[in-house]
């Protein structure tokens, strides 16, 4: 799966789960600069990303998904 196909879908998922405008979501979007991205928000984000891209992030990596960019890289690696 290419960046081009991942980016818009992932941006929509982030915007919906975190309550942001899609245009406000960038590679730099992370818990430190996004108050809605708290621990519960993180779980919601992981579940929504997994469903959207039909992937399962291994338990060891669930807590490492700490920015939009990392999420994108994880999907590139995991997506079929």
């Amino acid at each position, binding site marked *: 799966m290419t960046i081009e196909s991942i980016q818009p879908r992932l941006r929509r998922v982030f915007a919906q*789960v975190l309550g942001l405008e899609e245009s406000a979501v960038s590679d730099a979007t992370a818990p430190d600069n996004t108050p809605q991205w708290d*621990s519960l928000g993180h779980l919601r984000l992981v579940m929504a990303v997994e469903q959207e891209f039909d992937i399962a992030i291994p338990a060891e990596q669930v807590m490492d998904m700490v920015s939009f960019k990392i999420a994108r890289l994880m999907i590139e690696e995991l997506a079929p």
Partner: protein
Amino acid sequence: MLPPSISPFFEGFDGSLSSYQALARKLDPAMAELPEVRVALLASCTIEVAKSFLLVEGARRGLRFTIWSGPYGQIEQQVLDAGSELYAFKPDVVFILARLEDLVGSQVQGFITLDVAGRNDLRQTLAKLARQVAQSLRRHSAASLLWSAYVTPRLPGVEGASGLFGAESLAAFTSFLNGATAMEIESVSDARLFDLPAVFARCGSKRWHDERMSFLARMPFSGEGFAVLGTCLARAIRALRVPPRKCLVLDLDNTMWGGVLGEAGLGGIKLGDTFPGNAHQALQRAAQGLRNRGVLLAIASKNNREEALDALEQHPDMILRPADFSAMEIHWEDKVTSLRRIAKTLNIGTDALVFVDDNPVEREWVRKLMPEVAVIELPTSVAGYAVAIEDSEWFDAAVVTRDDALRVVMMSRQSERQALQESSGSLEEFLNALQMRAQAGEVNAETIERVVQLLAKTNQFNLTTRRHTRADLEQMIAAGAVAVWMRLEDKFGDNGLIGVVIGVPEAGEAGLWRVDSLLLSCRVIGRGIETALLGLLAKQVLARGGRVLMGEFVSSERNQQTKDLYARHGFESKDSAGQIWTKALEPLENFPIPAYLDLTYDD
């Protein structure tokens, strides 16, 4: 069920986890005018994620949920402590999800080592825990309780082989435990089990568990699991808060049977034990099941009346016969006219009707002209018709009483009563000829379910339309209120429990009693039963030291016929709006029981 005011928000909603989150956020400020239900969630694990799903699924059903989620693993602490956050939240509904893995993890882990006595002990301890929590909740709150039935824990290594339901298996233990817990819980008013195993089954075991989240965040369910839980819980809560619709209106051709009677004839319509006739029979059986639960059945069909009645009477595979229907509109006039007539015949509002018709044009026509009628969207194949009625949720009822079944029998004799009325010279003569025998008494454990149901359902003859829950009513009675019920039989049969009056002593004014509620089932309006109820209440209140009865009329869209009730009974108006009325209790002869009523009172 989806209110028009918020249906635009659901456009583009695709049911994905992210769209639930987005919708929950948008809906929150948009639901101000929907009725609020305050829902508290308590669990032995993390379930806070369920909130957004529950909020959306509540809105879809016309309810505005305000949701509080307690910290995980604090069920008993929150429920036992009168000063807890739970009670500060003032919940209307408390949902409790306790998992065996969390409650008694080591016992179920070592399940195989427990002997029979050990297993009995475990079952009794757990059932008692549920009862204690329910009792404690009831001491501090009138909230409805939903306690989740247990799902068989998935514990690697504990059982020999999954998929075998041995008498000694954990699965068998869990089933017995759920039965025992249901009995314990139901000994407390307005407390029931929530069918969590059904939620689990609907989602599917594989997709329900999320081991990763269980280890990482004590959150054992998947996102999809939470979405299904939110949906099922919202449905259950709606059933607790919203009474079922009263009447199912069925079309005939291609609905109750396959084909068009006018073209195919009695022998040509499809009905029987092969497809599609068996699917049409399944729809008829679903309707029959509803009728057993007290839902009135009616027909709205464009057909030749004689021919249709002939098919209903004569066809060997017909499940429903003419006597099962309380109203039949079979002619060539339009369905809107038919639906209005059905409501009028049955003396119910058109907003109590649910319409089933295979023809999308007829459905659209009814939707447009009568938005208050619930129109069930049928799937394209008849194979899904019966299930569509069930899944519409319009007939969901938290409580089904014996009186529900009785009502249908009663309504089927309504035409005979009408004939008697027409042949009687005067109202007096008619009321005498009905040979009414009434039985009344103070509300007790046997009658309270039906009384609460009447409080919830009665619109037309209801002076105040106060929807007390069972727990509310019990608290009122414990605080000194007098609540009286009445049953009525007449020469045509038993009408069941049809009237309620509740008197409450006014705080701070000795001798003044307020008529908090006064209502009659619509099937017995016009027989002076309200006069008897006031008479009974007056006698009881006088015996408790009351001197003055204060009547209240709280105007609603539906109860205008009771506006002059207190004036008719010699009460004095105390305000220009006609809301407050009073009358001295003495002499008691001013509160007579009608002479044509043979009344017995159970002390």
